[in-house]
């Protein structure tokens, strides 16, 4: 009975390990499909685009910016992403790296001929999230219940998958100075995750077991929708103000899980092995967010800044008949970004740079499963002090060929560290990402 319960809990654990890096302190962390970073100009300016975007990137940053597009545009983006995750895991270090070049976006914009104002339609796809991950780590856990003592844990995880947004947007002029826009997105993706978890009695403290192997296979089919609305106000020839609001994104995870468990005994036999196939649906609802931006431009110089606010404590996660009580583990997050761009007068070249402060909304915690299912714990009990600061630096350049073809490239590097300040050896994590992104756009 206890074993069956363990299988269920392990399955439940898998729900989190699939969406996170697999560390016990990040089991409840859900990968957040951001709407950023699929356009080189935006990336190069640190993401400060709410009051700037006036090309296909407006569909993801501020749809009102579509109203500023005057020519038919076809745009494509390629992205080379590299990520490195370093963690301490039961006192041992573990690294995971991932490098991949992928097609990140394709957009088509059509400004409808108007006599007054503007009416622009946009269609496109954005690769929002890359779930690819390869992880192998091991460490000694001093207190494993199965052995009533220490055990060597080895965790191997391979995950592939992508989340793509198919979007349609429209931007139009409401008044000469005010534009509005809406983007509606259909989210579609897959995750295939295989995790092998081996617990070994290397000290010989247990007289029954040698090792226990749990193998999890998870096949997820993701689908969902979201909408983004925005306005853009031209306060003066040099100053623009923008605001956006994103509706809750509802993502359904059609889950197929396969769990295999094998216990290897001291006498060389398998005492227990089991296999279970589980089909369960999970629905994650990402909360509202709002953002405000301003830009100032003078001859050859453009400076912009954005502020975004998201109350991640409103994140909802429904797994089958259960609703996870996530509120204590997610907090409010206010991200700030600033960027600048300089135009050369003698050649059609523009250089840009940016900085972003994007705090990680998840509070590191270890949550016993039964306490996560419903009422949860008192937030006051979660006293893990965590440094959630995430800093992003970027730079880029763009060149206009023949007056019709723009090529923009950007480099972005981001890094953050999460450490349990009271006991860094218990958990610490450093994530660094480097990214090169190129966007080409042809305006007919």
């Amino acid at each position, binding site marked *: 009975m206890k074993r069956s319960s363990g299988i269920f809990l392990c399955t439940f654990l898998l729900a989190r390990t699939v969406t996170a890096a697999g560390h016990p302190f990040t089991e409840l962390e859900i990968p957040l499909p951001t709407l950023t970073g699929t356009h080189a100009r935006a990336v190069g300016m640190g993401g400060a685009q709410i009051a700037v975007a006036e090309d296909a990137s407006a569909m993801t940053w501020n749809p009102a910016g579509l109203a500023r597009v*005057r020519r038919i545009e076809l745009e494509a983006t390629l992205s080379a992403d590299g990520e490195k995750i370093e963690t301490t895991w039961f006192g041992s270090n573990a690294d995971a790296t991932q490098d991949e070049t992928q097609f990140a976006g394709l957009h088509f914009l059509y400004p409808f001929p108007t006599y007054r*104002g503007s009416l622009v339609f946009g269609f496109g796809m954005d690769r929002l999230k890359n779930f690819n991950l390869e992880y192998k780590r091991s460490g000694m856990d001093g207190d494993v219940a199965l052995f009533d003592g220490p055990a060597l844990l080895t965790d191997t995880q391979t995950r592939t998958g992508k989340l793509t947004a198919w979007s349609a947007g429209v931007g139009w002029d409401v008044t000469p100075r005010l534009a*509005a826009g809406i983007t509606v997105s259909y989210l579609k993706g897959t995750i295939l995750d295989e995790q092998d978890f081996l617990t070994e009695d290397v000290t010989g403290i247990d007289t029954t077991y040698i090792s226990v192997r749990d193998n999890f296979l998870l096949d997820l089919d993701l689908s969902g929708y979201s909408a983004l609305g925005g306005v853009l106000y031209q306060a003066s*020839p040099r100053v623009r103000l923008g605001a956006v609001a994103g509706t809750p994104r509802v993502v359904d995870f059609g889950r197929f899980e396969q769990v295999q468990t094998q216990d290897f005994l001291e006498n060389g036999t398998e005492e227990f092995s089991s296999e279970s196939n589980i089909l369960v649906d999970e629905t994650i609802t990402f909360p509202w967010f709002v953002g405000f931006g301003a830009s100032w431009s003078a001859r050859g110089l453009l400076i912009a800044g954005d502020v975004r606010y998201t109350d991640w404590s409103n994140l909802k996660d429904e797994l089958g008949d259960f609703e996870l009580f996530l509120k204590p583990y997610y907090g409010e997050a206010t991200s700030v970004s600033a960027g600048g761009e300089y135009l050369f007068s003698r050649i059609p070249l523009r250089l840009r740079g940016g900085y972003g402060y994007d705090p990680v909304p998840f509070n590191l915690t270890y949550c016993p499963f039964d306490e996560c299912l419903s009422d949860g714990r008192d937030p006051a009990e979660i006293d893990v002090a965590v440094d959630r600061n995430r800093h992003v630096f970027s730079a880029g350049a763009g060149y206009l060929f023949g*007056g*019709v073809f723009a090529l923009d490239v950007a480099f972005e590097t981001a890094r953050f560290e999460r450490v349990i300040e009271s006991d860094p050896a218990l958990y610490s994590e450093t994530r660094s990402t480097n990214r090169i992104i190129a966007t080409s756009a042809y305006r007919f």
Partner: protein
Amino acid sequence: MDFRCRPGRRRLAIAVAAVVPFFLSACYTMVRHEASMDVAGDASHDGGRACADCHYTSEWLGYFDQPLIYGTAGYYAYDWWYDYYQRPWWFDDYWYDGGGTSPGESGARGTSSWTQRRLRRGEKPAAPSGASGPSLSTGGSSGVSAGSSGQSGSPADSKEKEGPHPSYGKKKRNPRR
């Protein structure tokens, strides 16, 4: 049947009900010219004057060169980006071929092919930095009215006739300058 709404959804419905009508009723964008276009041919009016009156006072004159509305000041200032960001594609006929009956339709001297347009746009524009479309070069009437008159100028014409950009907030300009 229970028609009660949860408080959160009710607030959302109220917000949507308040915002959507504003965007719809205040819709400024026009995809068709109003019937008043015929005013230009009305014997009781000075055609150009009638159009100019309407367009100047409505603040939407200068559809193409309005620095307040279209494009950031930085981009507006440079020829390199002017065509890329500023000029509507459906006015290529006016700009490159010198006229048409209305935006997006074939001009009097034929319609530019996409190839011709691309080649021309690849050149440094003949129009001065920030020059208005040819419609404005005819004396200040709107792009629509000027286009219908068939007097739209080439970029070179614009260069000769255009002055500095209208300053921000200056809604009424002298159409005869």
